């Protein structure tokens, strides 16, 4: 073979290898994004399960705070029916707000605050809130990496050829970190 042919074959091999590398990276990132989303989903479901228990427990001590209960219950129903990343994020904001209100109300009832069941639920919800925040953080990091790769040259050629698309961020419009920060530490 002539040297020119060798060079052409060499270049083709380099292009092919680069293509394979980019394709694998895209697949890996897409898997991580999906995985991140299912992590969020698990934690959101956990929160839906905890809310009715919490409402029942608080009702036993503060039965006349009906507005707050209705707010939380409605927000929960709305979130469970939500579809798509954007709508889900909106609905979850409503729940977070409602829960914050609920815990603020609970502050006025010393007997409630001493209830073991309530304390356990509060720890579970606080833990779940922060897990949602961490899962969201992981998901958004992976989405950012995927979107960068899908949008930039030359990986965008590979992405287009194999149907990789950008994903939505899971945004929660909160000044701080989203979760209800309730501190129950003994000794501080």
């Amino acid at each position, binding site marked *: 073979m002539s040297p020119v042919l060798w060079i052409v074959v060499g270049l083709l091999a380099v292009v092919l290898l680069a293509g394979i590398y980019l394709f694998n990276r895209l697949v890996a990132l897409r898997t991580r994004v999906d995985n991140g989303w299912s*992590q969020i989903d698990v934690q959101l479901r956990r929160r839906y399960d905890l809310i009715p228990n919490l409402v029942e427990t608080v009702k036993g001590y503060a039965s006349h705070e009906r507005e707050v209960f209705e707010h939380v219950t409605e927000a929960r129903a709305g979130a469970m029916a939500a579809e798509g990343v954007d709508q889900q994020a909106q609905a979850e904001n409503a729940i977070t707000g409602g829960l914050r209100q609920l815990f603020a109300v609970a502050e006025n009832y010393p007997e409630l605050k001493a209830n073991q069941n309530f304390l356990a639920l509060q720890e579970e919800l606080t*833990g779940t809130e922060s897990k949602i925040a*961490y*899962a969201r953080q*992981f998901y958004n990091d992976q989405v950012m990496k995927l979107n960068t790769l899908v949008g930039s040259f030359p990986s965008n050629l590979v992405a287009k050829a194999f149907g990789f698309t950008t994903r939505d961020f899971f945004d929660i419009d909160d000044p701080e970190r989203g979760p209800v920060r309730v501190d129950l530490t003994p000794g501080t």
Partner: protein
Amino acid sequence: MYEEIASNKRKSVLLVIGAFLFLGVIGLAIGYLFGTGPLGLVIALVVAFLLATWSYFSGDKVVLASTRAKLVTPDEQPRLHNIVEGLAIAAGVPKPKVYVVPEQAPNAYATGRDPEHSSIAVTEGLLTMMNRVELEGVIAHEMSHVVDRDILLGTIVATLVGAAVLLSEFFMRSWWWGGIGGRRGNDSNGGGFGLIMFAVGFALMAIAPLAGQVIKLSVSRNREYLADAQGALLTRYPPGLISALQKLETAPTAMRSANNATAHLWLNQPSRIPGEKNSTMERLFSTHPPLAERIRRLEEM
């Protein structure tokens, strides 16, 4: 981060090779002195192989047992479990097993061989002293050690140093008792044997401070700064870890289960003397950077 992981794997392999060479030389020496030829070397290499395999697969169990750490369920420690699970999600690794060490000094460590086989242990003192945000900061620091594979290197170092200490004591003692037996007994061969045992024990004793230096070099202080920074990145809230480190500054450090083999694993260097801060000797061989400097670097973030 990926460089850190690669460097940790490289150092782990080098350490194991070093242990092989060290034991091999001892084996050769014994074989030469006894005139048994390669037998000593073969035995030494078998011992080295067993030691390496053992420290890779069950080093974490040995470390956990030596600190008397107890596995806790989510029901027993809901707050701790929630925090560990949350940070594992943030770091994108499986949730480590959670242990509590019955000690009053606030401290924590991580061990295992990779993120799929990892454990995080905290002391009872840490649980009572830290609030949620501070505990998150500490666990995030430990989670960074898990992600960077610091745990593999740290655990191998701990088991190898522990084994070296045990071996040197074994040889020194066998010389001691062998020497007495020889005086009482009959054969001249026992005296020669005792002398060899003493030589080996002495060599190991001489190596012990050197091993300390190796630990200091391999488990460098930079590792702690890095874990602090990565931990702060995980929680996106540096003040949590800062406040935890500030509490550690004034807290007692004495722990009954502390020893030289595991000192480098802990969040804060443990002291063996109750009621006292770290002694001069311990400071000389310190495996950790000063807390004040760690706090300063976090505040600059």
